[in-house]
């Protein structure tokens, strides 16, 4: 094995304090706050609150949306000295094209093409197109820790040998949803954010983008080294942090462990420090618990505001600045430190040797992430406390599936699977009763469609494997569209009340990771909690996230994919829903672990690429040929072709079958399961059910029943269209 480090070879940053590292550094050295009253969009009433707005001539209403443009600006900066496109893109964002969608909805726009950039996946896909990246383009949405989680995933992908360069970061633009949402939670300081101050009253919602070009090879432009990352979940409350900062402590501790350093190696802590009374108090408790004597620390959010998904990535770029320029940024806007915090924040910017920085990001749902960034020379000099990271050879994790569940318009697991096997369609909206079954009324009283589905799927998958020892430690969820009901209801009430009475409950529920955090609360799952939003490939992205981020311990995890069909939003947003397509939704959940003993089957994701990649289908065939049992081992090929990609998908399928010289039966699962983003999760459940019965019903393939034997003990779940993905299930 070769020693390997992950280098930060390019940084891109656009935030209210400037565009580019040089401008950012200048503002930070001047200790100037960029917070100012909102003027990006007009308000129907009231004085605009202070926000962190990026200055620029761009209009509010643009195609591609402002989020996409901010991301591209930062990406170009990060790639300025790159030799070629990155092997992959991993991006964190919470609201995607929301700012544009809000305006379209106000104008009662019905042309669905205008909504094509709504989905959070489109930000990464847009960047991939612009920078010619044909590898995986993944999107994580874990609220305000999204950027940090994206960078943590990139770190592990590089360590695994699956990529050599990755563009990773986070982005969010201001929009009404977050501006009014945080205000409705009374989390906005009307006088501008002053983190850690005794008179702090909250945050300032902001926007921006931060991007890092991460590489396993050191270049002349190396700004820093990404030493380690740690993720945790509070499993405590949908919006409030754990009062003792339990999850925050765990994330920092795990980052230190991951970097193989101890807390005394940290020279500066870049705090999450939003300026809300609860966050700053909880974070201070966690810091004091971890450090006997805390190093210099500050929150830069008094200068930049809180740019949500972008914040962790922007602060990672600023951490690079800290180590490369030996600069400790000030805790801008701080006047009098809150003595109950027991911390001494940096009041003025200071030049001081900084070798190792710890940077924190915490989000709704108790989604926490910490990164450790070091000065490159520190890590190369002898006597350092840090051990070299060992690069594994290219590895793909094999998960063992111990239990599963699914639901669709056809009903619960048994009902859905039986109907599909009979050749009957289950495409439809799952009944509210089905998705709420066995869930205590108090638990779900505030939950609308998607979180109910998620909880129902999670509890049934857990019940199915029937053992306490399978209680999940981490959660990985894919959802193409997130909580559409909560988002729609929030925006509707906001508009109907003349922007006066937005619902705090709907805002908290509208974040993509709300469902996964509910699952974590239900099970007490304090490990990584990652929600991916990859459009029609969201479930596959969740599998990738699990592969990269599942803790090394044998502790089990829960993997799921779910989407809700919303009568207004789905037909507008989902390109695969034509006017006559019946609205469908559902999903599936899997209790997974690394322990094959007693498992129903194994799951791997051998392939995930953009269909624009050169010879993508040939590469798919080569990859699958190299799997155990090879191409001949497949007893069934389930194919997901989103309706919007029908022609392209069929061509891809024909080419695949030709290149692979296969006559294996094919089942186009969307014909029976329906058109919704995470339909592939249900197909995966169906595959397991075929293993259980030992055969593939002829009704699915237009032939006779086909027995699965020792030679043909695998099922392939192919995703075609814009991206090409392969999930492989194998019976033990």
């Amino acid at each position, binding site marked *: 094995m070769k020693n390997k480090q992950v280098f930060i070879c390019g940084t891109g940053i656009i935030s209210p304090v400037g565009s580019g590292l040089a401008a950012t550094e200048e503002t930070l050295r001047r200790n100037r706050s960029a917070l100012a009253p909102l003027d990006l969009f007009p308000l129907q009433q009231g004085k605009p609150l202070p926000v962190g707005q990026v200055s620029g001539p761009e209009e509010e209403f643009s195609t591609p949306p402002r989020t996409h443009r901010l991301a591209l600006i930062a990406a170009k900066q990060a790639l300025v000295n790159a030799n070629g496109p990155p092997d992959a893109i991993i991006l964190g964002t919470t609201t995607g094209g929301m700012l544009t969608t809000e305006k379209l909805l106000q104008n009662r726009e019905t042309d669905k093409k205008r909504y094509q950039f709504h989905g959070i996946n489109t930000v990464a896909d847009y960047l991939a197109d612009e920078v010619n990246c044909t590898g995986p383009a993944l999107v994580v949405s874990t609220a305000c820790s999204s950027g940090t989680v994206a960078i943590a995933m990139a770190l592990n992908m590089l360590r695994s040998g699956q990529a050599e360069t990755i563009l990773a970061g986070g982005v969010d633009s201001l929009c009404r949803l977050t501006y009014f949402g945080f205000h409705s*939670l009374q989390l906005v300081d009307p006088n501008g954010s002053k983190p850690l101050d005794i008179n702090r009253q909250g945050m300032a919602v902001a926007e921006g983008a931060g991007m890092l070009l991460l590489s396993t090879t050191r270049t002349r432009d190396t700004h820093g080294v990404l030493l380690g990352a740690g993720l945790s979940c509070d499993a405590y*409350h949908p919006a409030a942090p754990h009062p003792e900062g339990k999850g925050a402590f765990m994330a920092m501790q795990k980052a230190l462990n991951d970097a193989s350093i101890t807390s005394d190696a940290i020279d500066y802590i870049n705090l999450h420090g939003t300026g809300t009374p609860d966050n700053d108090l909880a974070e201070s408790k966690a810091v004091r618990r971890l450090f006997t004597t805390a190093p210099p620390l500050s929150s830069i959010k008094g200068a930049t505001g809180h740019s949500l998904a972008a914040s962790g990535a922007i602060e990672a770029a600023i951490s690079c600045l800290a180590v490369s320029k030996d600069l400790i940024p000030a805790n801008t806007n701080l006047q009098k430190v809150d003595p109950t915090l027991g911390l001494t924040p940096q009041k003025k910017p200071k030049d001081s040797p900084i070798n190792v920085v710890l940077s924190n990001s915490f989000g709704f749902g108790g989604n926490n992430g910490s990164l450790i960034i070091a000065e490159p020379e520190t890590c190369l000099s002898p006597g350092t406390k840090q051990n070299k990271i060992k690069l594994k050879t290219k590895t793909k994790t094999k998960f063992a599936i111990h239990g599963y569940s699914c639901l669709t318009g056809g009903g619960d697991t048994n009902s859905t699977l039986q109907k599909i096997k009979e050749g009957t369609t289950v495409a439809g909206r799952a009944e509210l009763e089905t998705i709420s079954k066995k869930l205590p009324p108090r638990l779900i*009283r*505030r939950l609308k469609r998607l979180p109910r589905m998620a909880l129902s799927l999670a509890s049934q998958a857990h019940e199915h494997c029937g053992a306490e020892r399978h209680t999940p430690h981490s959660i990985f969820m894919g959802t193409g569209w997130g909580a559409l009901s909560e988002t729609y209801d929030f925006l509707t009430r906001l508009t109907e009340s003349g922007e006066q009475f*937005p619902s*705090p*409950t709907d805002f908290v529920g509208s974040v993509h990771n709300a469902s996964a955090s509910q699952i974590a609360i239900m099970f007490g799952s304090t490990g990584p909690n990652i929600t991916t939003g990859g459009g029609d490939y969201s479930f596959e992205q969740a599998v990738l996230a699990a592969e990269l981020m599942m803790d090394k311990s044998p502790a089990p995890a829960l993997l799921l994919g779910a989407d809700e069909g919303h009568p207004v939003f789905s037909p507008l947003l989902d390109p695969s829903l034509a006017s006559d397509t019946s609205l469908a939704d559902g999903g599936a959940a899997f209790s997974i672990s690394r322990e094959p003993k007693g498992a129903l089957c194994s799951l791997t994701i051998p392939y995930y690429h953009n269909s624009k990649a050169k010879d993508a289908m040939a590469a798919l065939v080569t990859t699958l040929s190299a799997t155990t049992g090879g191409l001949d081992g497949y007893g069934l090929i389930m194919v997901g072709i989103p309706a919007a990609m029908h022609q392209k998908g069929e061509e891809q399928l024909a080419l695949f079958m030709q290149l692979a010289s296969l006559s294996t039966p094919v089942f186009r699962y969307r014909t029976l399961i329906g058109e919704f983003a995470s339909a592939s999760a249900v197909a995966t459940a169906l595959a397991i059910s075929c293993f259980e019965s030992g055969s593939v019903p002829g009704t699915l393939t237009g032939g006779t029943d086909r027995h699965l034997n020792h030679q043909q003990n695998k099922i392939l779940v192919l995703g075609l269209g814009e991206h090409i993905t392969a999930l492989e299930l194998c019976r033990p």
Partner: protein
Amino acid sequence: MSELTKELKVKLIDILNLQDLTPENLDENAPLVGGEYGIDSIDVLEMVVMVEKDYGIVINNQEIGEKVFSTLANLTAYIKENTPASSS
């Protein structure tokens, strides 16, 4: 029980979706937040919106909020005290 208390009971059950409660078994003197009803800080904010929308009373101070929403009886009293046109 005042008309306002009855009205508030119905509203709270509705906006907080307290499906397992009826106006009759919602005790106006029981702790509203953090008690057996499972009402938390997000619900408090939802009630803040309702009080502003339906009664024109703004509660944006945490200290006052904690007192007002401690029990339904306190909420009723606060609304009565702060509604200029109230005659009940």
